[in-house]
């Protein structure tokens, strides 16, 4: 087959494909709704969910997790493009990480010394460390599904950022159940859960995002 024949066959294929971001949101939104429903069925929401909207200390976790999710989704969409790795900007991730560390320091300073240990350990470490990765499965899977239509040249990095995005979104979902309001608890343990999912996703990306 010569190249002009191939060009003729390629040009005849005018099936349009949805853009990456359109495809991504199309599956991510249902995935998050399902994750929220699963959380509600398995653990229920915290009983005072409506009241904590006045509590800044508790609200920061949504600020952090939702910002991390949005920033990571944006970065994943850039990395999913072939030229993405040369145009991507990763510093917004550092800003979010800085904000998380800042929150942690602020909580450390403002928590009375005798309450520190209780605040860090809380009562639900294991629930948190199991629930966040479990709730991540759907959003991370949805993001991978969309990214496979992309063309990344850095599969492991793209996988990692997808893991970050999906697990941060899962953490925001989990926060509707989580009763631990001290940043000492949630910054520490949410981060650990998110880092775990991110590492696994990097390995998955390395395998399934090749093209």
């Amino acid at each position, binding site marked *: 087959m010569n*190249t002009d024949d191939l060009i003729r066959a390629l040009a*005849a294929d005018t*099936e*349009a494909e*949805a853009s990456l971001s359109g495809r991504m949101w199309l599956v991510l939104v249902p995935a998050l709704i399902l994750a929220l429903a699963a959380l509600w069925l398995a653990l229920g929401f915290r009983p005072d969910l409506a009241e904590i909207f006045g509590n800044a200390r508790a609200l920061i976790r949504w600020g952090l997790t939702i910002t991390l999710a949005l920033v990571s989704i944006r970065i994943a969409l850039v990395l999913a493009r072939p030229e993405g790795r040369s145009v991507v900007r990763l510093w917004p991730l550092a800003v979010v990480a800085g904000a998380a560390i800042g929150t942690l320091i602020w909580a450390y300073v403002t928590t009375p010394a005798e309450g520190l240990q209780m605040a860090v350990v809380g009562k639900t470490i294991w629930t948190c460390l199991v629930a966040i990765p479990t709730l991540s499965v759907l959003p991370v899977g949805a993001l991978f599904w969309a990214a496979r239509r992309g*063309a990344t040249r850095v599969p492991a990095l793209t996988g990692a950022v997808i893991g970050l995005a999906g697990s941060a979104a899962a953490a925001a979902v989990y926060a509707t159940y989580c009763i631990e309001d001290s940043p000492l608890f949630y910054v520490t343990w949410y981060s650990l859960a998110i880092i775990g999912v991110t590492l696994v996703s990097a390995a998955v990306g390395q395998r399934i995002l090749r*093209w």
Partner: protein
Amino acid sequence: MAAQIDDWGQLLTAANAGDEQAYTRFLQAVAPVLRGLVRARGASLGAAGCEDVVQEVMLAIHLKRHTWDQTAPVRPWLYAIARYKVVDAFRARGRKNDLPIEDFAEMLAASPDRDPTEATDMAKMIGMLDGRSETIVRKIGLEGASMSEVAAELRMSEGAIRVALHRALENLAVLRERHIK
């Protein structure tokens, strides 16, 4: 140079909106540039071997054309795909380089009057498609038939042919991946 960049961008924008002619012109403009790139890197593959890689890259560009952001320049996007696929192709072929030289004799001695854009891999892959997909790709590519002609011949709707062609091209990329690895 700048005019050329805009030109490619306009062609691909029109192509992604479904303009078949603009797309043909885009691919025709891109092919020689890719050929130069591949030959500069892999002269040892011979003309036909290089053209295999060129066609592989063209197929990848086709299947990933929706990843181009219309507000971004075309060339970095295009070269990124080319680089990724060329490295991939040479790596895959590099593993076979321990073959005795006799196996390449025929290729090295390829007569100068043969079509330099003729390649063999793609035809092999097309032969591995299921019967109907093979017919569709052959009719449209090699015989230059139109969608409606193929639709009439296979007694399918044009829409169904369109979808089948798209699937067939995706399958070609998958077959190719399996075949060279």
